[in-house]
């Protein structure tokens, strides 16, 4: 792996004394030799892929890494090109980014904000990464986004679903392709109305941390707008493994829908427990009892096994989509690895391509140039239909999928089926929506 000289704001760089072997310090002021942090000066450009490799989300992290490697391969002209062929922007040539071969470094976030920042810092300080991307939880994404803003590199968020990432914690250098809690609610609500009617009593179980709260707020607002009544909102500890004591009282509360605002291991366990208690066979208020999991992930759904059957939720993307872009991506990923990609893999692949494309269009790796190219960028052909990278909050607006756990899966990957593709217009909100208020992008930082 070759490494370029890195420079960032605050770096006082010596003149490179080639042969003498002794460095003569020459002090530069704030305007250092390079125009921006880690400006690639050699024949390569380095990207930093920061994903959870240990801890509960390690499998999602591994899938993200696969997608990153695939994206790099495609950017450098290898493989079948994947979604580069279907992408509406044709700036990418398959010769790296602006002729520079794409290199990458990987790191382990451990799903802890501290470790994630340490890993990202080492990529910036040691490996000269000009862009950081990845993450499989909102806390980590927000923490790393803040770091990238300070360091003056671009952050392309991976799987992060909290409203805050592009809401109160949004940053000028950070961009999110993934959807968010508000969009989940907005996409699910009409489907739930069609399926379960407008006269329903919902009981929320919510993971007791920031993501859980924004999710609960979004779903409750969306369902209450339908006329649903929210019976109770119960917070469950993050560390909980057995949810029986939270699920047992549900039936008695008069609720006929259980909303599980959980993700990852929490979701698997709470859903398994709910099904164990036989909630889905019960009739309450004369209606069939239903369970809703607003944020679905196929990898995690696998952990819940048969319990997901018939349960509705939303997802950013699913491999069974039949548009050309999705098919191209599934084909190139599936051929290389032998199984279909997850939504986490899809979103990070898109993010890598979007970043590379923005560099090409801007003609620079300078974060401010890249950001400008991404802001307000409209594109298609990345599997989610027409998409807008909104300038006001750096959030992508695109179709959201409502999915259901499949009754008769044909393979171990065939767990979910797409019920409805909610169009982008239905999930779009104003940049100053109260759920997203309280933060500011600030100005882009090039280091």
């Amino acid at each position, binding site marked *: 792996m070759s*490494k370029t000289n890195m420079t960032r704001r605050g*770096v*006082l760089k010596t003149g490179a004394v080639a042969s003498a072997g002794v460095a003569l310090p020459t002090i530069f002021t704030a305007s250092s030799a390079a125009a921006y942090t880690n400006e690639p000066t050699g024949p390569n450009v380095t990207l930093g892929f920061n994903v959870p490799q240990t801890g509960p989300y390690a499998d999602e992290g591994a899938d993200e890494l696969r997608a990153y490697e695939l994206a790099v391969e495609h950017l450098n002209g290898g493989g079948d090109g994947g979604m580069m062929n279907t992408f509406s922007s044709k700036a990418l040539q398959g010769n790296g980014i602006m002729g520079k071969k794409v290199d990458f470094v*990987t790191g*382990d976030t451990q799903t802890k*904000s*501290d470790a994630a920042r340490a890993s990202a810092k080492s990529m910036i*300080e040691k490996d000269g990464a000009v862009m950081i991307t990845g993450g499989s939880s909102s806390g980590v994404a927000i*923490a790393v986004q*803040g770091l990238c803003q300070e360091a003056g590199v671009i952050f392309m968020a991976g799987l992060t679903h909290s409203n805050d990432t592009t809401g109160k914690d949004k940053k000028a250098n950070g961009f999110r392709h993934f959807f968010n809690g508000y969009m989940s609610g907005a996409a699910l609500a009409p489907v739930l109305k069609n399926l379960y009617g407008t006269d329903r009593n919902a009981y929320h179980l919510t993971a007791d941390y920031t993501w859980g709260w924004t999710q609960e707020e979004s779903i409750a607002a969306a369902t209450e707008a339908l006329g649903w009544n929210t019976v109770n909102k119960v917070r469950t500890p993050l560390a909980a493994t057995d949810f029986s004591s939270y699920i047992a009282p549900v039936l008695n509360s008069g609720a006929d829908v259980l909303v599980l605002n959980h993700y990852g291991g929490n979701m698997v366990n709470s859903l398994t427990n709910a099904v164990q208690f036989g909630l889905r066979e019960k009739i309450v208020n004369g209606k069939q009892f239903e369970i809703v999991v607003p944020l679905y992930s196929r990898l995690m759904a696998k952990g819940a096994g048969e319990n997901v059957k018939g349960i509705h939720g939303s997802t950013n993307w699913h491999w069974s989509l039949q548009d050309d872009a999705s098919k191209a991506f599934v084909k190139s990923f599936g051929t290389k690895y032998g199984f279909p990609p997850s939504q986490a893999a899809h979103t990070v692949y898109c993010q890598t391509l979007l970043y590379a494309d923005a560099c090409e269009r801007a003609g620079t790796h300078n974060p401010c140039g890249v950001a400008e190219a991404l802001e307000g960028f409209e594109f298609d052909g990345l599997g989610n239909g027409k998409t807008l990278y909104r300038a006001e909050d750096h959030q992508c607006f695109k179709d959201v999928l409502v999915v259901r756990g499949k009754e008769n899966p044909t393979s171990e990957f065939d767990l979910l089926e797409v019920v409805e593709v909610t169009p982008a217009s239905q999930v779009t909100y104003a940049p100053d929506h109260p759920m997203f208020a309280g933060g500011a992008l600030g100005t882009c930082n090039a280091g």
Partner: protein
Amino acid sequence: MLGLNKKDTSLLVIVAALVMFAPFILNPFPSDSGLAQFNAGYPDLMQRFVIFGIFAIGFNILFGLTGYLSFGHAAFLGVGSYSAVWMFKLLSMNVIPAIALAIVVSGLFAVLIGFVSLRRSGIYFSILTLAFAQMSFNLAYSVLTPITNGETGLQLTLNDPRILGESATADGSIPVTSLFGLEMRSTYEMVVGPWAFQFNAGYYLCGIIMLLAFYLSIRIFRSPFGMMLRAIKSNQTRLNYTGLNPRPYALAAFVISGMYAGLAGGLMASMDPLAGAERMQWTASGEVVLMTILGGTGTLIGPVLGAGFIKYFENIFSKINDTVLHNWFSFMPDGLEDFVVFLIHPFIGKGWHLTLGILFMLVVTFLPGGLVEGGQRISRMVKKKSDDDTNAKTTPAE
């Protein structure tokens, strides 16, 4: 010198030299070589080495001297971090008040927890400290979110008041932490041929504070107070019947080590103004226990070595991936290259935990005194060898 005996002075001098020249020592491989992956001489990791060194030195004052095994020391680190970040949010970006507040608040916290926990000894004490720390963590993650910002961690924002500073810089960014204007992140880079050595202001601040902390710990170890602490570990009954009250001694040690942890937390926040709740989790408390035991409990330098060892694996081994491996072994024939990569693959990247676990077991099995004992054995071997040499020269005369 400085009230230390010859041996301690030379230890301090060696540590000082290592800290000062760390940017060279930790960057032995030219940056264009494949082995550059093993270089640890970049600011963030160097800062972590010394900060966790401080944390472990402090922990060792409690555990190494008194034998009280606290399983909740990370709580003080977390409290220190939160205090420091709040100082940056409310007062100014100068690190001095932040670090000062971190030490004070964690000290108060330690008085409280120590006063209660020290009513019990042995495993009962350990579980009490664990319980307090886990309570702090769980609450910080959820109910106390207004103070701690929960899952995301406490961060600086553009609308923080910062009454003695500025909310935002002229170009609309969040200001950076500094020591009277010297930015903590400012780095002087020296390029010598293929090497690039980085001298970071924040690292040197941490390094100097670590040396002070280390010096203070030597003084404590060698003081009458330190002797009393060792007496607590050795025989509390005798101490009681010698007219000495073990409780305030143990509490003082607990508070001192809590303040060390707070100092470490404050420095962490000063280098990178974010305070996450995970810093208080039991795994973080366990980590400092492991650092101390791994390095050598009750020794002066051991905890620092243990901290460096664990942080090195966490940051360096986790970043090695298959692509890197293929680069290293590209000189081999293809089949062999793949085979070697296949063999090493489980131990690097996402397998860094496995490597660390195996090393824990090996070290503790074969080096009962930790890494320090390893060092002693090597130096004894070297000494023995040189003794043999001198013997070899002198014996023929007899």
